[in-house]
């Protein structure tokens, strides 16, 4: 828009001294204003939930969510209720926390294993195998949920956490990402490790994995948010309310009969906190990790 290339501004300098500087500053201003505006817009729904945590549930249902509210009617009642009379809320919270940790650690480990195998070795069936990874990546899980659900019922695995976790440990998208990253790791490291008498798995754990730390951070965030928010599969598989994960629990508060909007809103707001902490903690590595593993041609 208003930017001049540095080359032309250098040559123009003798003629127009001020113009390039001003136009650059204007450009920065316009850009900043634009970015701040978009950032605020994208935070609006989050702010709306936050405001909702101080509002009466009936009020929210009746008037919808907005920023025009009566200050005198805001109260901390919802917070009091959350910590005194919220039923299974904290049980669900805890369940989600545990499942997220187990599944993220498992997925990172297993998927990086697979990716490493594809990236670093030559073996029969390798390219066919990897093409299968890509194809797998493009198949919606929703398409498989029905036969899997039938199968789970057949083998009596319903209502158990392992069946919630197991199907997603070797994740095609995560494998794909890790492989891209490992392709950038020099193979000489493997040779050096072998000369020093390190086993193949030792090479992975002691030499390659530490280099790939940014990739692990990026995938921890992406998988963390997926698992923390996972809904459909646990909804099908889990039966007992005390085993529910947080999103399913929240959804059960939405009944046509009862009115649990207070708990629903404040519970939704609190459900954001752990994942926000994870994101802010690993954010530094995030872009690094994504860049190094960027989808290369």
């Amino acid at each position, binding site marked *: 828009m208003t930017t001049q290339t540095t080359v032309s501004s250098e040559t123009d300098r003798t003629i127009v001294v001020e113009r390039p500087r001003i136009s650059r500053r204007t450009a920065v201003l316009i*850009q900043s204003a634009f970015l701040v505006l978009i950032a605020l817009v994208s935070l609006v729904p989050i702010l709306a939930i936050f405001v909702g945590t101080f509002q009466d549930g009936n009020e929210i249902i009746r008037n919808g969510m907005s920023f025009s509210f009566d200050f005198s009617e805001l109260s901390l009642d919802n917070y009091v209720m959350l910590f005194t009379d919220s039923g299974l809320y904290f049980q669900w919270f805890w369940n989600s926390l545990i499942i997220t940790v187990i599944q993220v650690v498992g997925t990172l480990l297993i998927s990086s294993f697979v990716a490493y195998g594809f990236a670093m070795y030559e073996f029969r069936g390798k390219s066919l195998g990897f093409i299968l990874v890509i194809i797998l990546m493009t198949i919606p899980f929703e398409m498989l949920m029905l036969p899997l659900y039938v199968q789970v019922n057949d083998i009596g695995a319903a209502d158990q956490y392992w069946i919630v976790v197991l199907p997603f440990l070797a994740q095609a998208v995560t494998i794909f990402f890790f492989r891209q990253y490992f392709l950038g790791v020099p193979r000489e490291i493997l040779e050096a490790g072998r000369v020093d008498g390190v086993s*193949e798995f030792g090479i992975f754990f002691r030499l390659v994995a530490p280099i790939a730390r940014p990739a692990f951070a990026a995938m921890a965030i992406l998988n963390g948010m997926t698992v923390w928010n996972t809904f459909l599969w646990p909804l099908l598989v889990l039966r007992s309310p005390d085993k529910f994960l947080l999103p399913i629990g929240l959804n059960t508060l939405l009944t046509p009969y009862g009115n649990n909007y207070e708990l629903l809103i404040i519970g939704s707001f609190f*459900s954001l906190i752990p994942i926000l902490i994870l994101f802010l903690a690993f954010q530094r590595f995030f872009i690094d990790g994504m860049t190094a593993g960027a989808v290369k041609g």
Partner: protein
Amino acid sequence: MKKLLYNQRLAPYLFILPFVLTLLIFWLVPVGRSVVMSFQEVLYGQATFIGTRNYERLWRDQVFWKAMFNSIRYMVLTLIVLVPIPMILAAIINSKLGSVRMKNFFKSSLFVPALTSVVVAGIVFRLMFSETDSGLMNQVVSFLGFGPVRWLREDLTGLFALLLLALWRWAGVNTMYFLAGMQAIPSEYYEAASIDGAGKIQQFFNVTLPGLKPTIVYVTTISVYGGLAMFLESFMLYAGNNSPNNQGLTIVGYLYRKGIQENDLGFASAVGVVLLVLVLVINLTQLTATGTFKKESAR
């Protein structure tokens, strides 16, 4: 055991074993089962083969075609929204203008929506798109001079809400992908282009865009997937799988309705098989056309 750990020829197979097992147990077996079930009538665990009758029923089923139309329309529209907009945002962040701190704030706030669950996002959007005059979106439109809109009752305004929800949740993630892709483009390319006299816009089209091709392929692929598999967003926005006049019903929603809610597993499997074929055809065409497979087998 020790020998096993040091064996270079065996090691790759051990590494990829979890993938092979997952593929077999959680993919091939269910797909096979789904195909078999689609030719059966399944009632209380009793399955009888009924030939292609499920598919014939599907072919004549108006609701199925409606769901199909909804899903494809949603997928195409999300592609139109969720590829160019994040790309432009990434290009702005990637430019040398502006302060780093502000850009970091921008990146974080753009990413935060992706951290919300579909349950939370759906509830907030449903309340923001409330029919009352005081709902947030109705305040916005009345500010612009329109009357209150019954957002979720009408087909197109409901679709708008769904698209906004998708844009809100995924723009940040896609921006990150594009940003990562842009940062992987060597800066020498830009210097060379700028010496040749190319302006910023020309640089974007001649350096950035070609350099981003793999990222574009990747983002398009996952967006096609996400668009065709969409279900929960509409499930939450419409408070269940029953939207007015089925306007929010998607293929997966229909699969869920038939298979889980109505226990018509054979028919639902036929829906699933059609969905599978559709996704595979679209993506395999796209990946072949962009040369992704050729590159993979050459490696």
